[in-house]
């Protein structure tokens, strides 16, 4: 078979520092013995670059400084694995290929759960040029680890198309931009319009009305608040919103980031407030999945449900269009604190990023950045949204006229929020938001909400303190 080991094709990862050849996109790994062919290639590119520089035509300088490139190829690692979003992504990719001079996009689809669990080894291995990911701490973490490529140049071209909230959500700790936000969905309290009409219920705007409504529903033999926490994460949504309303955005973010203490009496207040509504929860909620709780709402057995917009997927799957038409929501009621005015809420943002260790990013950088720019356009986000309407486009120029009422309202409550968080497990360390940590602590709290939470808060803080530095 002969020796087909072409030396230029054998990649040596983790080669450490790299030097860039001036005037080109070629990066040279240092401390690597180069084949003769490599040396010739470098010499060739180098002299070409020198030649172009020497010619110095004003026309050529604009093309060489262009961020994006047409044609060629690029790769995309995607967690959009189930049928609906997968098709949405394919639609966008096809549109991008035809708009960008036929750029070939190789999509590697990995199922959502595996992609998230394996993200660390994925990004350190042989990742694709562009990958789908989340904003928040989850994004900043990989930026800090040097596994994501800053995209300030792309952002400069597209930032006018995003609100300040989105701009803040894609900045790393070093204040470079690492992602392009493409979609989001809010958390709110969902209800059925027909149930509210039949019971003559009014949407509550403050805590007392909210509790009075719960009491009324209980009298009417409804479960006032559907709740499910078998998977651990749904309870964090309630903790987030209560902490945001009672203690404000800054405290919440500080708490997620470890600058504030879990033993703070402010945290005890959250648990105390929470205990006022836990008697209205679904029975045996610790054994229910969110789909089962959504089912209670769907079947008019429960009155309200605090969850993300994705609760509508259960209503879509019921096959009865009237169920979806009856679904509505209202923002979490004011609790009478100074932070009510922030109107803060969880609205997780999904983003696209560049993987620094991608073996092909060196040659595909222009195409990859062109893809990110393309994804920041309202028209491309609408293309995706049409196929997969679960989340809302982020771009300012996305045309909302086609949105159904529910989506329009969702977009509106997020835009009226002065502060946006990403959800606890996206805002805090992954090792603090898992089943052994925060999820477990909250389940422990929910098993007896009337308890004195001092011990529990102490456990939370000592768990945080015992975590290794990130």
């Amino acid at each position, binding site marked *: 078979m002969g020796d087909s080991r072409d030396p230029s094709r054998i990649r040596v990862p983790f080669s450490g520092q790299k030097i860039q050849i001036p005037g080109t996109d070629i990066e040279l790994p240092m401390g690597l013995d180069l084949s003769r062919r490599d040396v010739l290639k470098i010499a060739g590119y180098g002299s070409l670059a020198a030649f172009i520089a020497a010619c110095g035509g004003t026309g050529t300088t604009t093309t060489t400084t262009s961020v994006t490139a047409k044609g060629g190829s690029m790769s995309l690692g995607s967690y959009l694995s189930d049928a609906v979003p997968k098709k949405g992504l394919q639609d966008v990719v096809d549109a991008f290929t035809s708009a960008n001079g036929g750029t070939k996009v190789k999509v590697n689809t990995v199922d959502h759960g595996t992609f998230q669990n394996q993200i660390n080894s994925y990004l350190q291995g042989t990742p694709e040029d562009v990958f789908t990911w989340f904003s928040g701490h989850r994004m900043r973490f990989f930026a800090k680890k040097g596994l994501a490529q800053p995209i300030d140049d792309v952002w400069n071209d597209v930032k006018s198309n995003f609100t300040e909230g989105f701009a803040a959500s894609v900045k790393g700790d070093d204040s470079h931009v690492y992602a392009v936000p493409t979609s989001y969905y809010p958390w709110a309290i969902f209800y059925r319009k027909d149930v509210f009409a039949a019971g003559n219920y009014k949407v509550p705007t403050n805590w007392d009305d909210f509790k009075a409504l719960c009491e009324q529903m209980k009298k009417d033999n409804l479960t006032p608040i559907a709740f499910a926490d078998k998977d651990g994460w749904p309870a964090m949504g309630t903790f987030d919103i209560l902490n945001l309303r009672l203690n404000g955005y800054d405290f919440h973010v500080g708490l997620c980031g470890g600058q504030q203490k879990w033993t703070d009496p402010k945290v005890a207040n959250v648990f105390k407030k929470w205990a006022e509504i836990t008697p209205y929860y679904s029975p045996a909620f610790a054994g229910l999945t969110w789909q089962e709780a959504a089912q209670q709402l769907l079947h008019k057995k429960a009155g309200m449900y605090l969850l993300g917009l994705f609760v509508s997927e259960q209503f879509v799957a019921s096959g*009865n269009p009237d169920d979806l038409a009856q679904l509505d929501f209202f923002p979490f009621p004011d609790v009478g604190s100074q932070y009510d005015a922030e109107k803060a809420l969880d609205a997780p943002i999904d983003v696209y990023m560049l993987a620094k260790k991608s073996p092909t990013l060196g040659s595909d950088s222009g195409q990859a950045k062109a893809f990110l720019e393309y994804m920041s356009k309202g028209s491309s986000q609408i293309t995706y949204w049409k196929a997969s309407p679960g989340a809302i486009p982020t771009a300012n120029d996305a045309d909302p006229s086609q949105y159904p009422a529910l989506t329009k309202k969702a977009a509106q409550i997020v835009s009226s929020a002065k502060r946006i968080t990403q959800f606890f497990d996206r805002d805090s360390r992954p090792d603090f938001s898992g089943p052994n940590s925060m999820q477990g602590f909250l389940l422990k709290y929910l098993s007896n909400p009337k308890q004195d939470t001092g011990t529990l808060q102490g456990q939370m803080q000592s768990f945080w303190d015992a975590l290794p530095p990130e």
Partner: protein
Amino acid sequence: MSVIAAATRRTALPTAAARGIRPGRVALHGFLIAMTAVWLFPLFWAIYSSLRPISDTIQHGYLSWPSGGLSLANYQTVWMQADLPYYYLNTLVIAVPAVILTLLLASMVAFACTQFSWRFNLTTLMIFTAGNLLPPQVIIVPLYRIYLSTPIPMLGSIDIGKFSFPLFSSNGLLYDQYIGIMLIHIVFQTGFATFVLSNYMKTISKEITESAIVDGAHVLRIWWSIVLPLCRPALAAMATLLFTFIYNDFFWALILISTGDKRPITSALNNLQGEFFVNNNLIAAGAMLVAIPPILVYIFLQKQFIAGLTLGSTKG
């Protein structure tokens, strides 16, 4: 032994029939039927769910009679949506060479350790058996690094439909390749296979190999033409077991493969789940389809499989 047992059974049967139905037997069969029902219940429940559309179960709950009728629509969706045919192929591409190579290598070790006496033959055997006890999770981090820095030649690929099966490697590395998964399976299964095969080979009398030597057969010839044919039942049983082990594996591919399309069939089921919403009826249909090959292998090789479980158990 078995002749005596058969004889007693033959004489015992008519008396039992003559005595009629004993309460002990009723209790026994009642117990057996109950246990069978308990074990089969989840399976039938899954089959029942897989035949119902999700809207039906959302409207009426899982504990209900089908209102919209039963259909194979979920199976059809799974087959197309999860690209099951390709994932079956992925698993085959990994499992078949891995089983064959494991058996060849393990039989070589077992042959050398049992048919010849040399200074470290027992030690060697113990090392192989001990390797079997190592939990795979322990070595995953160094293995990941090794896979990322091991160059493997790229010799083109065979394209089948939208999937491409590279010869050796498609990225110049051991990471993210079928061959990488194959290798780690071989490494881990060789320990167990050696243990079982050596126990079986110990029963082959030395006279056979000695007379082969007298006839002028060299070592490899004895291994291939004398010992391996004698080990056929053991090899068949091992092949069944190994295929099941490798088929069921989820762990190695999870960590050592980053391309979704290269993952084995066990991971294809995850492609049916959304970020939040899970269509359990669809998953049930997928699980049924994925479970078929090992069941088929078991049915066809049942005799060897059961023989394999007791292999070497009574042989010193």
